[in-house]
C-alpha cells in the first residue's frame, strides 16, 4: 500500500524523508514554502534574495533532515534555518548596516492616491526600522527568544529587548490604526 503524500501527516512524511524519499521531502517543502518565504520577506529581505535564501534553507534542511525531530513543525524548523542563514548573510554584507539603524529612522508608508487602505501585517512591518523589524519578526514569527536573538545577531541583550519592545509597540499601533481606518472606510 502506498502512502498518499498530499494527505499524509508531517511525521510520516518526515520519516520517509529521513529514509531518503525525495517525494516526501518535496511535499514537506510544498507545505512549508509559504511560511519560509513570508518570514524572510517580513525580516526585510528583497523578493529575489528571499527566494534564494528560502532555497538555501530547504537545501540545508534536506542535508540535515535526519536531525529533524517532529517535536515542532517542519515549517518552524526550516524557518529557523532560513532566519539564521539570512542573519549570516546580512551580517556578512557590509552595505546593510541594519544593526546600527535606530528605531527613529522610520521609512514612510506608501499611500495609494490618498485612499485609506487596509494596513495588514506586512505593511505594518514596513513602519519599523530594519533592526526592529528583524527582531520582531524573529521573535514573533520564528520563535526565537531574546537571548537566542542576541547570540544570533551579535547584539547586546538590552538592544534586542528594546528593539522587540519598541517594534512590537509600533506594530500594534499600526495594526490598530489600520483596523480603525478600515472600520471608518466601511
Amino acid at each position: 500500500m502506498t502512502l498518499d503524500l498530499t494527505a499524509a501527516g508531517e511525521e510520516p512524511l518526515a520519516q520517509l524523508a529521513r529514509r531518503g524519499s525525495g517525494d516526501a521531502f518535496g511535499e514537506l517543502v510544498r507545505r512549508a514554502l509559504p511560511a519560509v518565504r513570508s518570514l524572510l520577506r517580513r525580516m526585510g529581505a528583497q523578493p529575489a534574495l528571499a527566494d534564494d535564501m528560502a532555497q538555501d534553507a530547504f537545501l540545508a534542511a534536506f542535508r540535515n533532515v535526519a536531525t529533524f525531530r517532529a517535536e515542532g513543525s517542519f515549517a518552524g524548523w526550516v524557518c529557523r534555518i532560513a532566519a539564521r542563514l539570512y542573519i549570516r548573510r546580512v551580517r556578512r554584507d557590509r552595505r546593510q548596516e541594519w544593526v546600527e539603524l535606530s528605531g527613529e529612522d522610520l521609512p514612510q508608508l506608501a499611500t495609494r492616491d490618498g485612499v485609506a487602505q487596509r494596513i495588514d501585517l506586512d505593511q505594518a512591518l514596513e513602519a519599523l526600522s530594519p533592526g526592529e523589524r528583524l527582531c520582531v519578526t524573529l521573535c514573533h514569527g520564528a520563535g526565537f527568544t531574546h537571548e537566542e536573538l542576541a547570540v544570533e545577531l551579535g547584539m547586546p541583550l538590552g538592544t534586542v529587548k528594546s528593539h522587540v519592545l519598541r517594534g512590537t509597540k509600533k506594530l500594534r499601533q499600526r495594526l490598530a490604526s489600520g483596523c480603525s481606518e478600515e472600520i471608518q472606510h466601511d
Partner: protein
Amino acid sequence: MTDRDADLEALFAQPAQLPDTKSVLQGILLEIDRRQRRRALLLTMAALAGALPLLLLTVAAWPVIAPALNSFAASTTAALGRDIILTLPQISPAYAQYAVWILVAASLLATGIAALRSLQSR
C-alpha cells in the same frame, strides 16, 4: 513575562500572499533532485573506489592464484575420490599486467568524469 505575544504569533503564522510560489517550489525541487542524483553518483564512485584496490590486487596476483587454486582442487579431488570441478582460467603475468593498467586507466577516467560532473553541478 514571555518573549512573545500569542496574538502576534498567530498573525505571523499566516503566510503573506506572495507571487511565483510555484516557480520557486519547482526550483527547489529540481535542485533537490539534482543533488540526490549527484549524491548517488558519488556514492557509486566511492564504492567503486573502495573495491578497486581489491580488484587490482586480485588481477595482478591472478597468474599465481589461479594455478594454486587449480592445483589445490586437483589434490583435493584425488584425496577425497570425488570430483571437484574447479578449473580457473589462467593468464600469463604479462596479460595480468595489461589488465591492471586497463583497470587503472578506466578508474582514472571514471574519477575524472565524476569530478567534472561534481564541479559542474556546484
